[in-house]
């Protein structure tokens, strides 16, 4: 298991090799100049302040939303899940443009915080919802019956249940903010990453070196995760004891209203902008059905495969640290997150480097693109899978073994179904993110293959927003699919024998 995990970590860390090589060829002088000018301190401060703001908001909103849909017993959970998860699939450019048009004079920190919070709360929502799904609600009922108030219950009972998921989601949020570029460009909020892109134009190798602080920042963030004590999460809910709570309209309506506002801001505003583009544009002809169809199929194919590979690779890495924890295992697992802090173009170019030198046969083929998606979004899958692994008690698989079944059978029939919510959440999250992936796709896709994201960009970068709009709408439409599947699966779970 460790060997497999180590291999995966090695593959995921390979972009760092290129950064090191680039740094060497750029020369220490240029790097020193770029890293240590006063602007760097200013950018670092910007990045840190924004990350703190966004993680606080996104964690609260994500957890609250997850609690509403999974615990509070609100109606129409499937639809809420679909809509709440959708913002991940909305292209950054659209969101940034939308908010910049609505309030061009808004303070750039505030605008950036709003945009990033709306874009990253699903990264907290999905793992936490998966955790709620599996955790035992009777513990909270017991606390209530013992006279503990709702706030204290949340702090002492609920929070420990979702601790792993919440922390994992927060780490993802911070790493995403660090590596964000598209939205900040429009909102004119300067961070280290926007600087990398600017530097990239003059000195691509120095730009690679500029990624080093990002990596260090990412490691710092991952390190803080270790400070907080870890505890094995609670037991799984026996389904029979879950009573569907009936919410009184007094509580149901404000909750529903809150969710509607969130969805309105996260999905409604960008969709409204896209519709506005279509209305305002002179080029009102819709794209050829053939182009739209082939782009959709390409997006679907590559994103789904990328998500599948990411989740499959995440499984051994997640299991590696939970069955037996040791410093090596922890280190290996942590190292796989590092690439989430890097801009997509850095990773794409490192894959170009490796492919043209060692694996030319796969250069600019679908295989490399799928590998790129898996590498880029691996941490998203890992966080979701880890949540499930934390909650799956080893005792159940031991029971299976003691009943005489071999390890493979036990894995397929006992462990895998227990891990299902996390695996599916991970698949959905990676799929949604891969659907809008642009920079790596432009570089690595087989020549002549277009995805919805590259077609959107082809028109948007030429200010032909009306022509770009249909592609954006299809992307958002596609985003509804994984959310719906997730909801369907959750509702059709089989009963797990209670302890």
């Amino acid at each position, binding site marked *: *298991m460790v060997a*497999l995990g180590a291999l995966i970590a090695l593959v995921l860390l390979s972009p760092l090799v290129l950064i090191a090589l680039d740094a060497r060829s750029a020369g220490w002088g240029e790097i020193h100049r770029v890293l240590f000018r006063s*602007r760097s301190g200013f950018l670092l401060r910007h990045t840190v302040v924004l990350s703190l703001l966004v993680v606080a908001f996104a964690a609260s909103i994500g957890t609250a939303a997850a609690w509403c849909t999974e615990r509070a017993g609100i109606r129409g959970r499937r639809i809420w899940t679909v809509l709440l998860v959708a913002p991940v699939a909305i292209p950054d450019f659209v969101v940034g443009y939308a908010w910049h048009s609505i309030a*061009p004079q808004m303070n*750039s920190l505030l605008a950036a915080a709003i945009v990033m919070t709306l874009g990253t709360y699903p990264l907290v929502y999905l793992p936490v919802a998966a955790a709620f799904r599996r955790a035992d609600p009777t513990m909270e009922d017991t606390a209530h019956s013992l006279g503990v108030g709702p706030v204290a219950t949340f702090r002492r009972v609920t929070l420990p249940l979702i601790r792993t998921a919440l922390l994992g989601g927060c780490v993802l949020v911070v790493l995403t903010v660090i590596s964000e570029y598209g939205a900040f*460009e*429009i909102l*004119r909020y*300067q961070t280290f990453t926007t600087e990398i892109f*600017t*530097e*990239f*134009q*003059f000195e*691509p190798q120095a730009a690679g070196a500029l990624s080093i602080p990002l990596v260090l920042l990412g490691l710092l963030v991952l390190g803080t995760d270790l400070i907080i004590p870890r505890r094995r999460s609670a037991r799984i809910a026996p389904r029979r004891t879950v009573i569907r709570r009936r919410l009184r309209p007094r509580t149901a309506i404000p909750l529903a209203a809150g969710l509607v506002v969130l969805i309105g801001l996260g999905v409604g505003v960008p969709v409204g902008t896209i519709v506005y583009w279509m209305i*305002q*544009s*002179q*080029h009102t002809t819709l794209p050829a059905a053939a182009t739209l169809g082939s782009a959709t199929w390409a997006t679907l*194919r590559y994103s789904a*495969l990328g998500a*599948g*590979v990411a989740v*499959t690779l995440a499984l*051994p890495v997640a299991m590696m640290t939970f069955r037996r924890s040791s410093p090596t295992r922890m280190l290996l697992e942590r190292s796989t997150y590092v690439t989430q802090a890097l801009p997509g*173009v850095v990773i794409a*170019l490192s894959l*170009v*480097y490796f492919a*043209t*030198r060692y694996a*030319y*046969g*796969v*250069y*600019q*083929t*679908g*295989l490399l*693109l*799928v590998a790129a998606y898996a590498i880029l979004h691996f941490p998203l899958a890992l966080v979701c899978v880890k949540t499930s692994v934390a909650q799956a008690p080893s005792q159940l698989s031991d029971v299976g073994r003691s009943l005489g079944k*071999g*390890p*493979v059978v036990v*894995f397929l029939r006992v462990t895998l179904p227990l891990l299902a919510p996390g695996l599916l959440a991970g698949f959905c999250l990676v799929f949604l993110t891969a659907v809008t992936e642009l*920079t790596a796709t*432009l*570089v690595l896709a*087989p*020549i*002549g*293959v277009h995805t919805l994201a*590259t077609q959107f960009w*082809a028109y948007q*970068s*030429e*200010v*032909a*927003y*009306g022509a770009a709009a249909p592609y954006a709408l299809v992307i958002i439409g596609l985003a509804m699919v994984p959310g719906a599947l997730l909801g369907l699966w959750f509702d059709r779970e089989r009963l797990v024998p209670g302890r």
Partner: protein
Amino acid sequence: MTGRSTSIRTRRWPVKAAGGALLVLLVAIVASGCGSSNGATAGSATTLTLYNAQHEQTTARLIAAFTRQTGIKVRVENDDEDVLTAQIEQEGHRSPADVFYTENSNWLQQLGERGMLEKVDAAALANVPKQDSAGNGDWLGVSARISVLVYNTSKLTASQLPKSVLGLAEPRWKGKIEIAPSETDFWPIVSSVARADGHAAALAWLKGLKANAGENDDVPDNETLTSDVSQGTTDLALINHYYYYRLQAEVGKSSVHAKIAYFAPRDPGYVEDISGAAILKSSKHKPAAQEFLDFLTSKAGQTVLAHSDSFEYPIREGVPANGELTPLDQLAPNSFTPAELGTGLDAKTLLQEAGLL
């Protein structure tokens, strides 16, 4: 538990084997399900690979016309010119690209200095004015763009505008302009000012611009500059002419509340920028690539360009530009050439010294 050995190592092997088999299976599915190869030559027809950083739709039309005329197919990778340059440099001699078509000439110059370009045939070079291509024949000029002022018509009149680009640094424009220093289109203007008035004057001018732009000294691109001026978010900006016409084409003339104005004749800010194409030394289809470059600068190719949505100026003699534009012979840009822009190094240094980058 009696009987069989229950050492942990023995028990884990089947799990590992299953995991490994699953991975192999997945890789096989992925490999078969991904299809498309990266080969370029197919059967009898040659296929060129073009890395394109220019207007995608115009390039598509040029390619269609080229294929109709010669039967040579072209497959295109589109991306920003800085990413494509970095990609070509990473790919090195194994690059699948045959031709590289960019918006600004300094990227081609950079590749040329690294020895990665093949000399363009004299026949193609003769299609366009000599100063619009590389002096040593590394790359070929294809189209031109002119730097202009775009101003909001409800806030300013033509007579209030500065006649020289240096006038933009004056205090009366404080809070009324926006600039996009990271746009490569800006660098030729900076180089031109430095050439005309010297390094120190250019630096002072840039610092003046930075002070006047205030918060808006890092607008990401010229498209945003143009639409900001049109919407009244700012009064004045420096762009290349075609952004204005493209915005008009997109939202309609009645929705654009702006006009463009040219600088005084031969002003340092009145620059003709050249967009060009080059053949990579690593190309495996050099004759076909030479044909393509020849087509781009032929009467047929330049006419396609002129009638397209890119709104750039064809540089071949005798091919009129898009009817919307002011004809090139009526304009008076200064004598700044791509050779003087070079790789853009001095522009970049100036911008960094001024704290704009």
